């Protein structure tokens, strides 16, 4: 189970980094293809994040406080990101939220490797 969680977290982290890179591409103006890639990677990363959270919250492994709050913050930031990209006035904050999501992924991954596996 611990190995499964570590592998899932690793896949999620890769997708989050890919999503972050495509987000930077959008900022540089490489529009349509990057947008599609960003959306795909973002949704896949969120799906993996959701599975990971279910496995950790409802699994037998003891969660660290930092991991618990990182997962909760991840959900809040993902929701905020989805709202922000649809709102024209708040769109300028999407890159900051994207960066924070990547930070959350780093915390989640390191906490899982260090304390669970």
């Amino acid at each position, binding site marked *: 189970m611990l190995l499964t969680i570590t592998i899932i977290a690793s896949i999620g*982290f890769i997708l989050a980094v890919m999503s972050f890179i495509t987000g930077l591409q959008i900022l540089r103006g490489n529009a349509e293809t990057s947008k599609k890639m960003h959306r795909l990677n973002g949704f896949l990363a969120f799906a993996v994040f959701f599975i990971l959270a279910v496995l950790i919250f409802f699994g037998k492994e003891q969660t660290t406080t930092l991991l618990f709050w990182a997962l909760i913050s991840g959900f809040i930031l993902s929701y905020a990101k989805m709202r922000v990209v649809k709102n024209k006035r708040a769109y300028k904050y999407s890159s900051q939220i994207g960066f924070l999501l990547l930070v959350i992924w780093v915390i989640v991954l390191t906490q899982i490797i260090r304390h669970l596996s």
Partner: protein
Amino acid sequence: MASLFLLTANLQAAMIHVPSDYKTIHESVEHASPGDTVMVGEGTYRENIQITKPLTIKSEKGSENTIVQAAVRKEPVFKVLNVDGAAITGFTATGSDTAGIYIRNSRNILITDNKTLKNDSGLRIYNTRNSLFRHNTANANEQFGIYLEASGENTIEKNTVESNKDKGIYLNASHNNSVQENSVKLNIWNGIILWLSNNNTVKDNTVFRNMYGIVIAESKDTALINNTNWPNIYLILPVVLAYLALILFFIEQKIFSLLEK
């Protein structure tokens, strides 16, 4: 003549049961004669036990079921002083601000199948010779898992030393010891450290994910044989995965541009 003496000694050696003969372990140790065996039944005992004569202290049901918590936190759970030939087997020793098992000025000591958890240190051994520390678990202690100072000709083997907040196995000014087949993982600082310690053998140990694996400082003639040493992957893995993500990003970009054509 010698065998006759041993036979007489064995005949005289008694078996004391805790809690049926005495309610506490330290009471039974006080009343035991050299060579006796104290057999401890399952349960949780709150006491500090000092051993100053050659005794065997064993649990009936193993370390999982026989837990000794330090009654006085600043004292060790088990303290062995000036003894030639004692054994402690099958206990969980916890809750001491000194050590789970503390041995000083002794020789021919056998420490096996114990768990020393959440103490200042798991095992602290000073000026002790010709002793065997085998199949013990020293986890989640505030400082060291197993600490030896000024001790020689000891064997530390097949122990599990994990998640201690400083060092896993620490040999300080200790010579001619053998550290072998131990599993030393996830200690915050060094996995195994030899400091001012000469002629030691470090063999067949698994040293995973400590800050530094095996550290040898100011020590001579150490035999390092067939140890497995992995770094702390929580520092490396995110970097490796980020590189992998970059490569996958380029592949994905190619796929998307091919699809759009």
